[in-house]
Protein backbone atom coordinates (compact mmCIF):
# COMPACT_ATOMS: atom_id res chain seq x y z
CA UNK A 1 0.00 0.00 0.00
CA UNK A 2 1.31 3.44 -0.91
CA UNK A 3 1.82 5.84 1.97
CA UNK A 4 -0.63 8.30 0.44
CA UNK A 5 -3.38 5.71 0.30
CA UNK A 6 -3.00 4.73 3.89
CA UNK A 7 -2.91 8.36 4.83
CA UNK A 8 -6.29 9.05 3.30
CA UNK A 9 -7.71 5.90 4.78
CA UNK A 10 -6.72 6.59 8.32
CA UNK A 11 -7.31 10.30 8.14
CA UNK A 12 -9.56 11.60 10.88
CA UNK A 13 -10.99 14.95 11.69
CA UNK A 14 -7.81 15.77 13.55
CA UNK A 15 -5.66 14.71 10.69
CA UNK A 16 -7.48 16.42 7.85
CA UNK A 17 -5.09 18.73 6.07
CA UNK A 18 -2.26 17.68 8.34
CA UNK A 19 1.12 19.00 7.32
CA UNK A 20 3.88 16.50 6.79
CA UNK A 21 5.96 17.54 9.78
CA UNK A 22 3.72 15.65 12.16
CA UNK A 23 4.66 12.06 12.56
CA UNK A 24 1.94 9.58 13.23
CA UNK A 25 2.46 8.30 16.74
CA UNK A 26 -0.54 6.02 17.06
CA UNK A 27 -2.63 4.82 14.15
CA UNK A 28 -5.75 2.87 14.96
CA UNK A 29 -7.03 1.27 11.80
CA UNK A 30 -10.52 -0.27 11.64
CA UNK A 31 -10.02 -1.73 15.09
CA UNK A 32 -12.62 -4.03 16.59
CA UNK A 33 -12.56 -5.90 19.84
CA UNK A 34 -15.08 -8.49 20.94
CA UNK A 35 -15.38 -9.57 24.54
CA UNK A 36 -17.74 -12.42 25.25
CA UNK A 37 -19.59 -11.77 21.97
CA UNK A 38 -20.05 -8.11 22.77
CA UNK A 39 -18.55 -5.44 20.58
CA UNK A 40 -16.54 -3.37 23.03
CA UNK A 41 -14.79 -1.51 20.26
CA UNK A 42 -16.38 -1.46 16.85
CA UNK A 43 -14.48 -0.52 13.71
CA UNK A 44 -12.57 2.38 15.24
CA UNK A 45 -10.19 4.45 13.14
CA UNK A 46 -8.20 7.21 14.79
CA UNK A 47 -4.79 8.78 14.42
CA UNK A 48 -2.71 10.46 17.11
CA UNK A 49 -0.17 12.90 15.72
CA UNK A 50 3.10 13.97 17.24
CA UNK A 51 2.54 16.39 20.16
CA UNK A 52 -1.20 15.89 20.23
CA UNK A 53 -2.89 15.81 23.61
CA UNK A 54 -5.65 13.26 23.24
CA UNK A 55 -8.26 13.03 25.97
CA UNK A 56 -10.22 9.82 25.91
CA UNK A 57 -13.46 10.35 27.75
CA UNK A 58 -16.42 8.14 28.34
CA UNK A 59 -18.53 6.54 31.07
CA UNK A 60 -17.64 3.25 32.70
CA UNK A 61 -17.94 0.42 30.23
CA UNK A 62 -17.39 2.63 27.19
CA UNK A 63 -14.20 0.75 26.38
CA UNK A 64 -11.63 3.30 27.54
CA UNK A 65 -9.52 0.84 29.46
CA UNK A 66 -9.98 -1.83 26.80
CA UNK A 67 -8.65 0.56 24.18
CA UNK A 68 -5.65 1.42 26.36
CA UNK A 69 -4.92 -2.23 26.95
CA UNK A 70 -5.10 -2.85 23.21
CA UNK A 71 -2.73 0.05 22.58
CA UNK A 72 -0.07 -1.29 24.91
CA UNK A 73 -0.40 -4.85 23.69
CA UNK A 74 -2.08 -6.33 26.77
CA UNK A 75 -5.03 -7.37 24.60
CA UNK A 76 -5.06 -8.57 21.01
CA UNK A 77 -7.50 -6.94 18.56
CA UNK A 78 -10.27 -9.13 17.15
CA UNK A 79 -9.74 -7.39 13.82
CA UNK A 80 -8.01 -4.32 12.50
CA UNK A 81 -4.55 -3.08 13.30
CA UNK A 82 -2.70 -0.67 15.57
CA UNK A 83 0.51 0.98 14.47
CA UNK A 84 2.83 2.61 16.99
CA UNK A 85 5.43 4.98 15.59
CA UNK A 86 4.57 3.63 12.14
CA UNK A 87 5.12 0.01 13.09
CA UNK A 88 2.47 -2.65 13.45
CA UNK A 89 1.99 -3.48 17.13
CA UNK A 90 2.67 -7.17 16.53
CA UNK A 91 6.22 -6.27 15.48
CA UNK A 92 6.70 -3.25 17.74
CA UNK A 93 9.73 -3.54 20.03
CA UNK A 94 10.57 0.01 21.13
CA UNK A 95 8.45 0.00 24.26
CA UNK A 96 10.92 2.33 25.95
CA UNK A 97 9.49 5.12 23.75
CA UNK A 98 6.20 4.78 25.62
CA UNK A 99 5.65 5.84 29.22
CA UNK A 100 2.71 4.48 31.15
CA UNK A 101 1.03 5.90 34.25
CA UNK A 102 -1.46 3.49 35.84
CA UNK A 103 -4.56 4.22 37.86
CA UNK A 104 -3.62 5.31 41.34
CA UNK A 105 -5.42 2.46 43.04
CA UNK A 106 -3.85 -0.19 40.80
CA UNK A 107 -1.02 -0.98 43.18
CA UNK A 108 -0.63 -2.47 46.64
CA UNK A 109 0.16 0.41 49.03
CA UNK A 110 1.92 -1.94 51.46
CA UNK A 111 4.36 -3.16 48.84
CA UNK A 112 7.86 -2.71 50.26
CA UNK A 113 9.19 -0.53 47.45
CA UNK A 114 10.90 2.84 47.72
CA UNK A 115 10.13 5.74 45.44
CA UNK A 116 13.58 5.36 43.92
CA UNK A 117 13.08 1.67 43.20
CA UNK A 118 9.80 2.46 41.49
CA UNK A 119 11.26 5.21 39.34
CA UNK A 120 14.18 2.94 38.49
CA UNK A 121 11.78 0.22 37.35
CA UNK A 122 10.71 2.51 34.50
CA UNK A 123 14.05 1.67 32.90
CA UNK A 124 13.48 -2.08 32.95
CA UNK A 125 12.32 -3.72 29.79
CA UNK A 126 13.11 -6.26 27.16
CA UNK A 127 16.13 -4.31 25.98
CA UNK A 128 17.71 -4.32 29.41
CA UNK A 129 17.36 -7.95 30.31
CA UNK A 130 20.60 -9.27 31.84
CA UNK A 131 22.04 -5.76 32.01
CA UNK A 132 23.03 -3.86 35.10
CA UNK A 133 22.17 -0.21 35.48
CA UNK A 134 25.07 2.15 34.90
CA UNK A 135 25.99 5.67 35.99
CA UNK A 136 24.00 7.25 33.16
CA UNK A 137 20.91 5.31 34.27
CA UNK A 138 21.36 6.55 37.82
CA UNK A 139 21.58 10.08 36.50
CA UNK A 140 18.33 9.61 34.59
CA UNK A 141 16.66 8.44 37.81
CA UNK A 142 17.98 11.46 39.73
CA UNK A 143 16.75 13.78 36.98
CA UNK A 144 13.29 12.27 36.98
CA UNK A 145 13.09 12.58 40.77
CA UNK A 146 14.28 16.20 40.60
CA UNK A 147 11.90 17.20 37.86
CA UNK A 148 8.93 15.79 39.78
CA UNK A 149 10.29 17.41 42.97
CA UNK A 150 10.31 14.16 44.91
CA UNK A 151 14.09 13.78 45.28
CA UNK A 152 13.76 14.15 49.05
CA UNK A 153 11.25 11.31 49.14
CA UNK A 154 13.42 8.89 47.14
CA UNK A 155 14.16 6.62 50.10
CA UNK A 156 10.61 6.51 51.45
CA UNK A 157 8.30 3.55 50.92
CA UNK A 158 5.58 4.34 48.38
CA UNK A 159 2.80 3.65 50.88
CA UNK A 160 4.04 6.43 53.16
CA UNK A 161 3.47 9.10 50.49
CA UNK A 162 0.35 11.16 49.93
CA UNK A 163 -1.80 10.46 46.88
CA UNK A 164 -0.37 13.37 44.94
CA UNK A 165 3.21 12.40 45.76
CA UNK A 166 2.52 8.83 44.71
CA UNK A 167 1.17 10.07 41.42
CA UNK A 168 4.30 12.14 40.84
CA UNK A 169 6.40 9.05 41.59
CA UNK A 170 4.53 7.14 38.89
CA UNK A 171 4.88 10.04 36.49
CA UNK A 172 8.62 10.07 37.22
CA UNK A 173 8.73 6.36 36.46
CA UNK A 174 6.99 6.96 33.14
CA UNK A 175 9.34 9.85 32.27
CA UNK A 176 12.63 8.22 33.23
CA UNK A 177 13.10 6.80 29.72
CA UNK A 178 12.31 10.21 28.12
CA UNK A 179 9.33 8.70 26.31
CA UNK A 180 7.80 10.25 23.19
CA UNK A 181 4.34 9.00 24.02
CA UNK A 182 2.85 9.15 27.50
CA UNK A 183 -0.22 7.08 28.26
CA UNK A 184 -2.16 7.93 31.42
CA UNK A 185 -5.00 5.77 32.68
CA UNK A 186 -7.26 7.91 34.89
CA UNK A 187 -4.26 9.16 36.83
CA UNK A 188 -6.21 11.37 39.21
CA UNK A 189 -8.85 8.94 40.44
CA UNK A 190 -8.98 8.93 44.21
CA UNK A 191 -6.96 12.12 44.69
CA UNK A 192 -8.37 15.25 46.30
CA UNK A 193 -9.46 18.08 44.02
CA UNK A 194 -6.61 20.43 44.82
CA UNK A 195 -3.92 17.83 44.15
CA UNK A 196 -5.74 16.84 40.96
CA UNK A 197 -5.56 20.43 39.82
CA UNK A 198 -1.84 20.55 40.48
CA UNK A 199 -1.24 17.30 38.68
CA UNK A 200 -3.20 18.46 35.67
CA UNK A 201 -1.24 21.72 35.60
CA UNK A 202 1.96 19.70 35.51
CA UNK A 203 0.70 17.56 32.62
CA UNK A 204 -0.44 20.65 30.74
CA UNK A 205 2.89 22.30 31.20
CA UNK A 206 4.68 19.24 29.91
CA UNK A 207 2.47 19.18 26.85
CA UNK A 208 2.95 22.84 26.09
CA UNK A 209 6.70 22.95 26.52
CA UNK A 210 8.09 19.49 25.87
CA UNK A 211 8.26 17.09 23.06
CA UNK A 212 5.76 14.53 24.30
CA UNK A 213 2.53 13.21 22.85
CA UNK A 214 -0.20 12.52 25.39
CA UNK A 215 -3.00 10.02 25.54
CA UNK A 216 -5.01 10.37 28.70
CA UNK A 217 -8.07 8.46 29.81
CA UNK A 218 -10.34 10.29 32.18
CA UNK A 219 -13.91 10.68 33.20
CA UNK A 220 -13.28 14.13 34.57
CA UNK A 221 -15.07 16.11 31.86
CA UNK A 222 -14.53 19.51 33.45
CA UNK A 223 -10.80 19.41 33.68
CA UNK A 224 -10.38 17.88 30.25
CA UNK A 225 -12.77 20.33 28.58
CA UNK A 226 -10.99 23.26 30.14
CA UNK A 227 -7.87 22.32 28.25
CA UNK A 228 -9.11 20.39 25.25
CA UNK A 229 -12.23 22.34 24.33
CA UNK A 230 -15.82 21.26 24.63
CA UNK A 231 -16.24 19.54 21.28
CA UNK A 232 -14.92 16.03 20.79
CA UNK A 233 -13.05 15.56 17.55
CA UNK A 234 -14.47 12.12 17.13
CA UNK A 235 -16.94 9.82 18.86
CA UNK A 236 -17.14 6.07 18.67
CA UNK A 237 -20.04 4.66 20.63
CA UNK A 238 -19.77 6.24 24.07
CA UNK A 239 -16.07 6.91 23.61
CA UNK A 240 -15.18 10.51 22.91
CA UNK A 241 -11.85 11.74 21.64
CA UNK A 242 -10.80 15.28 22.52
CA UNK A 243 -7.67 16.56 20.86
CA UNK A 244 -5.51 19.58 21.41
CA UNK A 245 -2.33 20.28 19.56
CA UNK A 246 0.38 22.54 20.93
CA UNK A 247 -0.27 24.81 18.00
CA UNK A 248 -2.70 24.82 15.11
CA UNK A 249 -1.59 22.16 12.64
CA UNK A 250 -1.67 24.61 9.78
CA UNK A 251 1.05 26.71 11.45
CA UNK A 252 3.37 23.83 11.09
CA UNK A 253 5.48 25.40 8.37
CA UNK A 254 6.67 28.16 10.67
CA UNK A 255 7.33 26.21 13.81
CA UNK A 256 8.31 22.80 12.65
CA UNK A 257 11.98 23.26 13.43
CA UNK A 258 11.36 24.37 16.95
CA UNK A 259 9.00 21.62 17.84
CA UNK A 260 9.51 18.70 15.52
CA UNK A 261 13.24 18.49 15.87
CA UNK A 262 14.68 15.52 17.74
CA UNK A 263 15.16 16.67 21.28
CA UNK A 264 18.65 16.65 22.69
CA UNK A 265 19.94 14.18 25.26
CA UNK A 266 18.68 13.87 28.74
CA UNK A 267 15.45 14.64 30.41
CA UNK A 268 16.89 17.49 32.44
CA UNK A 269 17.44 19.50 29.27
CA UNK A 270 14.02 18.54 28.08
CA UNK A 271 12.39 19.68 31.30
CA UNK A 272 14.62 22.62 32.12
CA UNK A 273 12.11 25.09 30.68
CA UNK A 274 10.10 24.63 33.87
Amino acid at each position, binding site marked *: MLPMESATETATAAAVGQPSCHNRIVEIDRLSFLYEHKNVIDNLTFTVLERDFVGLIGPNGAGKTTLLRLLVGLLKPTSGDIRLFGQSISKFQDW*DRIGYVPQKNAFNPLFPATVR*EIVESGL*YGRKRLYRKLGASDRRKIDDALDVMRIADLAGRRIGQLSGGQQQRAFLARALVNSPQLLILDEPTVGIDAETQQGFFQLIRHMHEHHHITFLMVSHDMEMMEAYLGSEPVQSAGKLKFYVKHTHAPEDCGETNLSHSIERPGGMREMMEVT
Partner: protein
Amino acid sequence: MDIFLEPFFQRALIGGILIGLTAPLMGTFLVLRRLSMIGDTLAHVSIAGVALGFLINVYPLGTGLLFALLASFAIEQLRKTYRTYAELSIAIIMSGGVALATLLFTLGKGFNMNVMSYFFGSVYTLDTADIAVVGGVSALVLIVICLHFKEFFLMFFDEEAASVSGLPVRAYNIAVTMLTALVISVSIKIVGALLVSALLTIPVACSLVVGRSFRHSVGMAVLYSEVAVMIGLVVAGVWDLAPGATVVLTLIVLLIGTLTFKMGLRRRA
Protein backbone atom coordinates in the same frame (compact mmCIF):
# COMPACT_ATOMS: atom_id res chain seq x y z
CA MET B 1 28.31 -30.47 71.66
CA ASP B 2 29.24 -33.68 69.87
CA ILE B 3 26.19 -33.46 67.68
CA PHE B 4 27.94 -31.04 65.31
CA LEU B 5 30.42 -33.77 64.47
CA GLU B 6 27.75 -36.24 63.43
CA PRO B 7 27.51 -36.50 59.60
CA PHE B 8 23.71 -36.75 59.73
CA PHE B 9 23.51 -33.45 61.62
CA GLN B 10 25.96 -31.78 59.26
CA ARG B 11 23.82 -32.88 56.31
CA ALA B 12 20.77 -31.54 58.10
CA LEU B 13 22.48 -28.17 58.59
CA ILE B 14 23.56 -27.95 54.94
CA GLY B 15 20.07 -28.88 53.73
CA GLY B 16 18.49 -26.47 56.20
CA ILE B 17 20.71 -23.56 55.21
CA LEU B 18 20.00 -24.11 51.50
CA ILE B 19 16.25 -24.24 52.05
CA GLY B 20 16.49 -21.33 54.48
CA LEU B 21 17.94 -19.34 51.58
CA THR B 22 15.58 -20.30 48.76
CA ALA B 23 12.24 -20.69 50.56
CA PRO B 24 11.93 -17.05 51.69
CA LEU B 25 13.03 -15.84 48.24
CA MET B 26 10.19 -17.67 46.54
CA GLY B 27 8.00 -16.82 49.53
CA THR B 28 8.52 -13.09 48.97
CA PHE B 29 7.30 -13.42 45.41
CA LEU B 30 4.30 -15.49 46.46
CA VAL B 31 3.23 -13.14 49.23
CA LEU B 32 3.58 -10.10 46.97
CA ARG B 33 1.48 -11.84 44.33
CA ARG B 34 -1.11 -12.60 47.05
CA LEU B 35 -0.58 -16.30 46.61
CA SER B 36 0.59 -17.18 50.12
CA MET B 37 -1.47 -20.34 50.20
CA ILE B 38 0.11 -21.81 47.08
CA GLY B 39 2.90 -23.21 49.26
CA ASP B 40 0.51 -25.35 51.26
CA THR B 41 -1.23 -26.54 48.13
CA LEU B 42 1.92 -27.61 46.32
CA ALA B 43 3.17 -29.31 49.47
CA HIS B 44 0.03 -31.41 49.74
CA VAL B 45 0.15 -32.42 46.09
CA SER B 46 3.82 -33.20 46.55
CA ILE B 47 2.91 -35.63 49.34
CA ALA B 48 0.69 -37.49 46.92
CA GLY B 49 3.72 -37.78 44.64
CA VAL B 50 5.87 -39.02 47.49
CA ALA B 51 3.26 -41.67 48.33
CA LEU B 52 3.22 -42.78 44.70
CA GLY B 53 6.99 -42.97 44.75
CA PHE B 54 6.92 -45.34 47.72
CA LEU B 55 4.15 -47.35 46.08
CA ILE B 56 5.96 -47.93 42.78
CA ASN B 57 9.39 -47.92 44.38
CA VAL B 58 10.78 -44.78 42.74
CA TYR B 59 12.86 -42.07 44.50
CA PRO B 60 10.01 -40.37 46.44
CA LEU B 61 11.48 -36.86 46.39
CA GLY B 62 11.61 -37.18 42.59
CA THR B 63 7.98 -38.15 42.18
CA GLY B 64 6.97 -35.50 44.74
CA LEU B 65 8.85 -32.91 42.69
CA LEU B 66 7.14 -34.03 39.48
CA PHE B 67 3.70 -33.83 41.11
CA ALA B 68 4.38 -30.35 42.46
CA LEU B 69 5.44 -29.19 38.98
CA LEU B 70 2.30 -30.63 37.39
CA ALA B 71 0.17 -29.03 40.09
CA SER B 72 1.83 -25.65 39.50
CA PHE B 73 0.93 -25.87 35.81
CA ALA B 74 -2.64 -26.81 36.70
CA ILE B 75 -2.88 -23.81 39.04
CA GLU B 76 -1.65 -21.42 36.34
CA GLN B 77 -4.17 -22.91 33.92
CA LEU B 78 -7.06 -22.62 36.38
CA ARG B 79 -5.94 -19.10 37.25
CA LYS B 80 -6.50 -18.16 33.61
CA THR B 81 -9.98 -19.70 33.61
CA TYR B 82 -11.05 -18.06 36.87
CA ARG B 83 -9.04 -14.90 36.42
CA THR B 84 -10.43 -12.87 39.28
CA TYR B 85 -10.59 -15.76 41.75
CA ALA B 86 -6.93 -16.63 42.27
CA GLU B 87 -7.66 -18.53 45.48
CA LEU B 88 -10.23 -20.79 43.82
CA SER B 89 -7.61 -22.61 41.76
CA ILE B 90 -5.56 -23.08 44.91
CA ALA B 91 -8.47 -24.59 46.83
CA ILE B 92 -9.25 -27.01 44.00
CA ILE B 93 -5.70 -28.26 43.61
CA MET B 94 -5.16 -28.49 47.38
CA SER B 95 -8.17 -30.72 47.96
CA GLY B 96 -7.29 -32.76 44.88
CA GLY B 97 -3.80 -33.33 46.25
CA VAL B 98 -5.01 -34.38 49.68
CA ALA B 99 -7.59 -36.73 48.15
CA LEU B 100 -4.99 -38.32 45.88
CA ALA B 101 -2.51 -38.71 48.74
CA THR B 102 -5.16 -40.34 50.94
CA LEU B 103 -6.11 -42.73 48.16
CA LEU B 104 -2.50 -43.74 47.60
CA PHE B 105 -1.99 -44.27 51.35
CA THR B 106 -4.85 -46.75 51.51
CA LEU B 107 -3.41 -48.56 48.48
CA GLY B 108 -0.09 -49.11 50.23
CA LYS B 109 -0.80 -49.49 53.93
CA GLY B 110 2.69 -50.83 54.66
CA PHE B 111 4.61 -47.59 54.11
CA ASN B 112 2.60 -45.31 56.35
CA MET B 113 5.52 -44.62 58.64
CA ASN B 114 7.82 -43.50 55.85
CA VAL B 115 5.30 -41.15 54.37
CA MET B 116 4.79 -39.63 57.79
CA SER B 117 8.37 -38.40 57.68
CA TYR B 118 7.36 -36.26 54.71
CA PHE B 119 4.37 -34.87 56.55
CA PHE B 120 6.36 -33.81 59.58
CA GLY B 121 9.81 -33.55 58.06
CA SER B 122 12.82 -35.67 58.88
CA VAL B 123 15.81 -33.49 58.30
CA TYR B 124 18.06 -36.05 60.02
CA THR B 125 17.35 -38.70 57.40
CA LEU B 126 18.71 -36.60 54.51
CA ASP B 127 21.17 -38.67 52.50
CA THR B 128 23.77 -37.52 50.01
CA ALA B 129 21.35 -37.86 47.09
CA ASP B 130 18.84 -35.62 48.90
CA ILE B 131 21.52 -33.00 49.52
CA ALA B 132 22.46 -33.10 45.84
CA VAL B 133 18.83 -32.54 44.81
CA VAL B 134 18.39 -29.69 47.32
CA GLY B 135 21.68 -28.16 46.15
CA GLY B 136 20.69 -28.39 42.48
CA VAL B 137 17.32 -26.78 43.06
CA SER B 138 18.87 -24.02 45.18
CA ALA B 139 21.49 -23.27 42.52
CA LEU B 140 18.80 -23.04 39.83
CA VAL B 141 16.63 -20.74 41.95
CA LEU B 142 19.55 -18.45 42.79
CA ILE B 143 20.70 -18.19 39.17
CA VAL B 144 17.23 -17.34 37.87
CA ILE B 145 16.58 -14.79 40.62
CA CYS B 146 19.96 -13.09 40.25
CA LEU B 147 19.56 -12.77 36.49
CA HIS B 148 16.00 -11.44 36.64
CA PHE B 149 15.80 -9.67 39.98
CA LYS B 150 14.92 -6.22 38.59
CA GLU B 151 12.36 -7.58 36.15
CA PHE B 152 10.74 -9.62 38.93
CA PHE B 153 10.45 -6.46 41.00
CA LEU B 154 8.58 -4.65 38.23
CA MET B 155 6.38 -7.66 37.57
CA PHE B 156 5.31 -8.12 41.17
CA PHE B 157 4.85 -4.43 41.77
CA ASP B 158 2.95 -3.61 38.60
CA GLU B 159 2.28 -6.42 36.17
CA GLU B 160 0.69 -4.10 33.60
CA ALA B 161 3.69 -1.81 33.52
CA ALA B 162 5.87 -4.88 33.10
CA SER B 163 3.78 -5.88 30.07
CA VAL B 164 3.97 -2.38 28.64
CA SER B 165 7.77 -2.52 28.96
CA GLY B 166 7.72 -5.59 26.75
CA LEU B 167 8.66 -8.09 29.47
CA PRO B 168 7.54 -11.69 28.92
CA VAL B 169 5.15 -11.59 31.88
CA ARG B 170 3.50 -14.89 31.17
CA ALA B 171 6.79 -16.75 30.92
CA TYR B 172 7.93 -15.13 34.18
CA ASN B 173 4.75 -16.17 35.97
CA ILE B 174 5.20 -19.75 34.86
CA ALA B 175 8.88 -19.74 35.81
CA VAL B 176 8.17 -18.40 39.29
CA THR B 177 5.44 -20.97 39.91
CA MET B 178 7.66 -23.80 38.68
CA LEU B 179 10.58 -22.71 40.84
CA THR B 180 8.23 -22.51 43.80
CA ALA B 181 7.10 -26.06 43.13
CA LEU B 182 10.71 -27.20 43.07
CA VAL B 183 11.60 -25.43 46.31
CA ILE B 184 8.53 -26.76 48.10
CA SER B 185 9.01 -30.35 47.07
CA VAL B 186 12.59 -30.38 48.32
CA SER B 187 11.57 -28.53 51.51
CA ILE B 188 9.03 -31.09 52.61
CA LYS B 189 11.67 -33.56 53.69
CA ILE B 190 13.23 -30.87 55.86
CA VAL B 191 10.33 -29.10 57.57
CA GLY B 192 7.51 -31.41 56.50
CA ALA B 193 4.58 -30.75 54.20
CA LEU B 194 2.42 -29.41 56.99
CA LEU B 195 4.95 -26.72 57.85
CA VAL B 196 6.42 -25.78 54.46
CA SER B 197 4.25 -22.75 54.02
CA ALA B 198 5.57 -21.39 57.34
CA LEU B 199 9.09 -21.28 55.91
CA LEU B 200 7.78 -19.55 52.79
CA THR B 201 5.63 -16.94 54.48
CA ILE B 202 6.68 -16.14 58.06
CA PRO B 203 10.12 -14.75 57.13
CA VAL B 204 8.32 -12.53 54.61
CA ALA B 205 5.78 -11.48 57.23
CA CYS B 206 8.75 -10.31 59.36
CA SER B 207 10.57 -8.61 56.49
CA LEU B 208 7.49 -6.67 55.37
CA VAL B 209 7.46 -5.03 58.80
CA VAL B 210 11.12 -4.02 58.86
CA GLY B 211 11.95 -3.71 55.13
CA ARG B 212 13.01 -0.25 54.02
CA SER B 213 13.01 -1.15 50.33
CA PHE B 214 12.33 -4.15 48.12
CA ARG B 215 15.97 -5.24 48.14
CA HIS B 216 16.20 -4.77 51.88
CA SER B 217 12.99 -6.75 52.46
CA VAL B 218 14.22 -9.68 50.41
CA GLY B 219 17.51 -9.67 52.30
CA MET B 220 15.79 -9.48 55.67
CA ALA B 221 13.46 -12.38 54.77
CA VAL B 222 16.49 -14.55 54.04
CA LEU B 223 18.19 -13.42 57.26
CA TYR B 224 15.13 -14.22 59.42
CA SER B 225 14.73 -17.61 57.82
CA GLU B 226 18.41 -18.58 58.17
CA VAL B 227 18.48 -17.52 61.82
CA ALA B 228 15.36 -19.58 62.52
CA VAL B 229 16.67 -22.63 60.66
CA MET B 230 19.96 -22.60 62.60
CA ILE B 231 18.40 -22.00 66.01
CA GLY B 232 15.65 -24.52 65.28
CA LEU B 233 18.01 -27.28 64.15
CA VAL B 234 20.44 -26.79 67.02
CA VAL B 235 17.64 -26.74 69.62
CA ALA B 236 16.12 -29.84 68.07
CA GLY B 237 19.47 -31.60 67.93
CA VAL B 238 20.51 -30.83 71.50
CA TRP B 239 17.16 -31.55 73.17
CA ASP B 240 16.02 -34.22 70.74
CA LEU B 241 12.89 -32.44 69.48
CA ALA B 242 11.12 -32.47 66.09
CA PRO B 243 13.29 -30.13 63.94
CA GLY B 244 10.46 -28.94 61.65
CA ALA B 245 8.51 -27.82 64.68
CA THR B 246 11.43 -26.02 66.35
CA VAL B 247 12.26 -24.12 63.13
CA VAL B 248 8.69 -22.95 62.65
CA LEU B 249 8.21 -22.03 66.30
CA THR B 250 11.47 -20.06 66.22
CA LEU B 251 10.11 -18.17 63.22
CA ILE B 252 6.93 -17.37 65.09
CA VAL B 253 8.89 -16.16 68.11
CA LEU B 254 10.95 -13.93 65.79
CA LEU B 255 7.77 -12.57 64.22
CA ILE B 256 6.20 -11.76 67.58
CA GLY B 257 9.47 -10.15 68.70
CA THR B 258 9.64 -8.04 65.54
CA LEU B 259 6.03 -6.90 65.80
CA THR B 260 6.42 -6.04 69.49
CA PHE B 261 9.64 -4.12 68.82
CA LYS B 262 7.96 -2.20 65.99
CA MET B 263 4.97 -1.31 68.16
CA GLY B 264 7.29 -0.15 70.92
CA LEU B 265 9.11 2.12 68.48
CA ARG B 266 5.88 3.60 67.22
CA ARG B 267 4.64 4.29 70.71
CA ARG B 268 7.84 6.09 71.61
CA ALA B 269 7.77 8.17 68.42
